[in-house]
């Protein structure tokens, strides 16, 4: 009945111990998105082998949900084919995290976009 208060347990887990943090120096694809409204910035690096995401890392400047969605999307994408990874939506990420506060759904749920940018970057480098 009452509206959810604060972040879900899952968001807090990912926030406190984010997975796949860092930089891939020789990345095959790189995506960076930012939200001009509140200023969050996310970047995702991918390493691709046989059309699959073999390695993935991120760095994020932003709030709890910005960090948690980045961590979650990298988990979700790892091991997927590029086509599969392209189908991951912002909503999927939020759902996997057991939801986000409504206010945060649009502004700091950009991780899927960063992932898609990285894949597009990879594809354009392949000249596809």
């Amino acid at each position, binding site marked *: 009945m009452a509206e959810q208060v604060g*972040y879900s347990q899952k968001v*807090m887990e990912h*926030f*406190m111990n*984010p997975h796949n*943090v860092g930089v891939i120096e020789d990345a095959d694809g790189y995506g*960076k998105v930012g939200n001009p*409204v*509140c*200023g*969050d*910035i*996310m*970047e995702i690096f991918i390493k691709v082998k046989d059309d699959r995401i073999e390695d993935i890392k*991120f*760095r*994020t*400047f*932003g*709030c*709890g949900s*910005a*960090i948690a969605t980045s961590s979650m999307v990298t988990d979700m994408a790892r091991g997927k084919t590029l086509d599969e990874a392209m189908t991951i939506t912002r909503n999927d990420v939020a759902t996997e995290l057991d939801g986000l506060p409504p*206010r945060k759904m649009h*502004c*700091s749920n950009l991780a899927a976009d960063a992932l898609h940018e990285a894949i597009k970057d990879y594809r354009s480098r392949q000249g596809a």
Partner: protein
Amino acid sequence: MERIYLDHAAAMPVDPRVLDAALPYLTEKVGNPSSLYNEGLTAKSAIEEARGRVADLINAEDTQSIIFTSGATESNNIAVRGTALRNIRTGKKIAASTIEHISVINPAKDLQKSGFAFDRIPVDAMGVVDLEALNGIVTPETAVTSVIYANNEIGTVEPIPEIAGIVHDRGRYLHVDATDAAGRIPIDVQRDGIDLLTLSGNQLGGPEGIGALYIRPGVREQPVIFGGGQERGLRSGTENLFGIVGMGEAARIAGADMQGESRRLAGIRDRLIERILTIDEAYLTGHPVKRLPHHASFRFSRIEGESIQLAMDMYGIAVATGSACTSRTLEASHVLLAIGLRHEEAHGSMIATLGRSNTMEQVPMVVDAARETVKRLRAITPL
């Protein structure tokens, strides 16, 4: 793990002495203060006694110059809207500093819809009101000029007597929001030249849901809320007896304890500031000297404040932040922008406001937690 609470500017526990004094007015000493039966007279006396105590704290010339409201937000609304509308013959202009609380800014913006001009007075990089600019902006048509006594986000204390001098030379009334300053530093409305002063009950150690507005005798006001005509017609509604008695007692205690307690907190504050500033790319916001004794505020480059708040909480420490990400509108703090920070810089703010439960012994724990927090968040930042 014992928690360390450092957000007293947002909400404070009620002083146990206040509770003792005010609780009977919730249970036994209940009656309509406008009625002449016994319980009503008791209630009325209690209210007038509380009014006197609040008047004493700020050296008001007349107890009747204090009206009780539902809180600082409402006091600010009356001071801005009520003064402007009642003194419309002065002119359709109002002015306020760029670092006022949003409960001053938003009623001022609302008046713009009714044709009022709303002028903003800039502050310098430390948050001090620019007196020359003030002198240029305020005119005889400015019915009310609003300047915060000390800002809640950056702690800077304004030179109110000088500001009052200019406002009275140039314009009409000076309203001062003393929500965070009262009970921390000595306020004297007569010495300071203040026409209207906002006070919060909770910020004095009293309950929430109660506040007061000092109105210098002779200043004309109109209400924002209309009804039964309580509080000289300026704040209708059955009196919040528990809140009023509590705020009165809190004002009395604040007056008696202020000197000692403020000195104690300033000691903790100074140590905290000194130690936090040893963290890489950590900066103080607000004035290094002219600041509230219980207030320490910072920014850390390249990280964001909501994350700071969440991480500090994991270490058992409650702090505030002015980050856009925690605001309802997701906009950067107008206060941090007003002191000249860029959006990215305004993001990484952390505010600690001290109170009775805080001790010098807590400082190392807070500093260690902050250091760890900054390290963690910097490890994942792309900036």
